[in-house]
C-alpha cells in the first residue's frame, strides 16, 4: 500500500473519530465531550502516524521495480521461490538480462595511438586505489612505466605509436581472465558485446524482502544496476597488472567479458536514477545482492554519508537500510552484505528453477 493511500486513510480515520465522538452529545455535556473528542482524535492520529511510518519504511526498503531503466531486462521480472545461502526459504525476484546496459552503447575503452585524447579512451583505477578513475589517454599508456614505477610496461609500438589492444574475440578470450595468456600480455584489454554468445543471458535472484543476516556476508557480486548490468565484486587487480595489462573500463566504470557480459567495477554516474530524492539524499544506482538499495557516494550537496556501518550501510526513515557505494577507484561498491543473499558463485545470479542458463563461473579479468 502506498504512502499516499495511508495518508488518505489517516485523514478519513481522523474525521471519523471526530464525527463519531460527536454522536450522543447533548448541549449540557458539550464541553467535556469536545475534550474527549480531541483526546480520542489525538490518539487516533498518533497511532495512525506510527502505522504510516512503519509501513512506509517497509515499502521503501527493498526493490522498487519502477526504478529500473526501460529494457533493463529481457523479460518481465518474476517472483520465484528461492533459498538464501543461510538456508532461509523466501521469495526472490528473478531478473533476466542480456548482459548489456539498457539505453546506451558501452565503450570506448582503449585508445588507439599514444596521441589519442581522453575522448577516445575510457578509464582505469588510479594507482592509489582511491578517488576518481584516471583517463586512459594515449599519454597515460605512454607513461605507464613511470606511473607504475616499472620499466617493463610497453603497451604500444614505439615505432608506430600504435597501442596494442585486444582487437579480436580470440584476443579478448585470451586476455580477459586472471591467467592472461602470454601472447596477450602487454595489451590494453577490451571486449565487445558482439563477442557474447547469441543466447547469452544473465539471471539474478534477489530476495523480494531483504532479510537481515545473523552475520554480514562477503561480497562476490555486489548487485544489479538500474540499467540491468551487474555491479561486480572487486576486480583482480594484481593478476591484471601482473600480466602488464589494463582491463580498460569505459567512462561509466564498466567493461565486458564473455562470462558476465557488461558489468561495472565502479560507478561514475551512468547508472544513477533519473529521479532525485526530495530530501537531497544521494541517488539510487541499483540494488545489492541482498535486496537493499545501493545509493551514490555523495548526496545532492556533494557530501558523503556519515555513520556508515562496516558494510557501508545505514538506516533512515525513508529508505530503511541501504548502502552508499565507495569512490570509483576503490575497487569495490560496498564492504559486505548486511542481508542474506542467494550466492552461488555468480553472486545474485543463482540458478533459477530449472537450471543455470548462463554457463560456467566467471573468470573476470576485471
Amino acid at each position: 500500500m502506498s504512502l499516499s493511500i495511508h495518508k488518505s486513510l489517516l485523514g478519513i480515520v481522523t474525521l471519523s473519530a471526530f464525527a463519531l465522538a460527536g454522536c450522543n452529545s447533548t448541549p449540557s455535556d458539550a464541553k467535556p465531550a469536545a475534550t474527549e473528542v480531541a483526546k480520542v482524535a489525538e490518539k487516533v492520529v498518533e497511532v495512525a502516524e506510527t502505522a504510516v511510518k512503519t509501513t512506509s519504511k517497509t515499502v521503501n526498503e527493498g526493490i522498487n521495480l519502477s526504478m529500473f531503466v526501460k529494457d533493463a531486462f529481457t523479460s518481465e521480472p518474476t517472483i520465484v521461490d528461492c533459498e538464501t545461502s543461510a538456508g532461509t526459504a523466501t521469495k526472490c525476484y528473478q531478473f533476466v538480462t542480456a548482459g548489456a546496459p539498457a539505453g546506451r552503447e558501452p565503450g570506448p575503452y582503449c585508445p588507439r595511438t599514444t596521441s589519442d585524447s581522453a575522448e577516445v579512451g575510457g578509464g582505469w583505477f588510479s594507482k592509489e586505489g582511491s578517488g576518481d578513475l584516471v583517463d586512459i589517454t594515449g599519454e597515460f599508456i605512454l607513461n605507464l612505466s613511470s606511473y607504475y614505477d616499472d620499466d617493463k610496461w610497453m603497451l604500444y609500438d614505439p615505432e608506430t605509436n600504435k597501442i596494442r589492444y585486444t582487437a579480436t574475440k580470440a584476443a579478448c578470450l585470451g586476455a580477459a581472465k586472471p591467467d592472461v595468456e602470454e601472447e596477450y600480455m602487454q595489451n590494453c584489454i577490451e571486449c565487445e558485446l558482439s563477442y557474447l554468445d547469441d543466447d547469452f543471458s544473465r539471471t539474478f535472484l534477489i530476495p523480494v524482502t531483504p532479510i537481515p543476516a545473523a552475520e554480514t556476508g562477503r561480497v562476490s557480486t555486489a548487485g544489479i544496476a538500474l540499467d540491468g548490468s551487474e555491479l561486480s565484486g572487486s576486480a583482480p587487480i594484481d593478476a591484471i597488472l601482473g600480466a602488464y595489462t589494463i582491463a580498460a573500463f569505459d567512462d561509466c566504470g564498466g567493461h565486458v567479458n564473455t562470462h558476465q557480459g557488461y558489468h561495472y567495477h565502479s560507478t561514475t554516474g551512468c547508472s544513477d536514477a533519473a529521479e532525485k530524492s526530495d530530501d537531497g539524499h544521494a541517488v539510487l544506482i541499483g540494488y545489492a545482492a541482498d535486496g537493499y538499495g545501493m545509493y551514490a557516494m555523495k548526496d545532492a550537496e556533494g557530501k558523503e554519508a556519515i555513520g556508515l556501518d562496516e558494510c557501508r550501510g545505514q538506516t533512515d526513515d525513508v529508505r530503511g537500510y541501504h548502502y552508499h557505494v565507495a569512490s570509483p577507484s576503490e575497487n569495490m561498491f560496498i564492504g559486505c552484505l548486511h542481508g542474506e543473499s542467494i550466492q552461488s558463485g555468480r553472486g545474485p545470479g543463482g540458478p533459477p528453477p530449472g537450471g543455470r542458463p548462463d554457463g560456467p563461473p566467471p573468470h573476470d579479468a576485471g
Partner: protein
Amino acid sequence: MTFKKVLNKALPVLATIAAVLTFSVASAHTGAPSGAALLACEAKQKSQACQYEGAHSDLYIGTCQYMPDQLLCVRNQPIQKKVESEKTETEEKHEPHKK
C-alpha cells in the same frame, strides 16, 4: 649426450628463467590500486579498524572486510582530505588526468 646430461645443463637455465619471470610478475604487483587497502589489513582480522593513505595523502578509515577472499580495508568514513595547501607541485605535475 645422455638425457641426464642435457637435463643437468638445462635445469639451471630453466630455474633462472623461472626466477626472473616470477620476480617480474611479483614486482608488477607493487602499486596495485588496492595495495594500500590490502596492506592496511595485513595481520588483522575481519571487522578490525584500519586506515590507509589514498591519493594526495588523503586518509581512508574503515574496517577490514573479505573482498571476497582477501581482507581489504573498507572505508566507512568520509575521505579525510589533506589540507589543500599541503599538496605539492610534484603531485600536480605527474598526476594523470582524473575524470
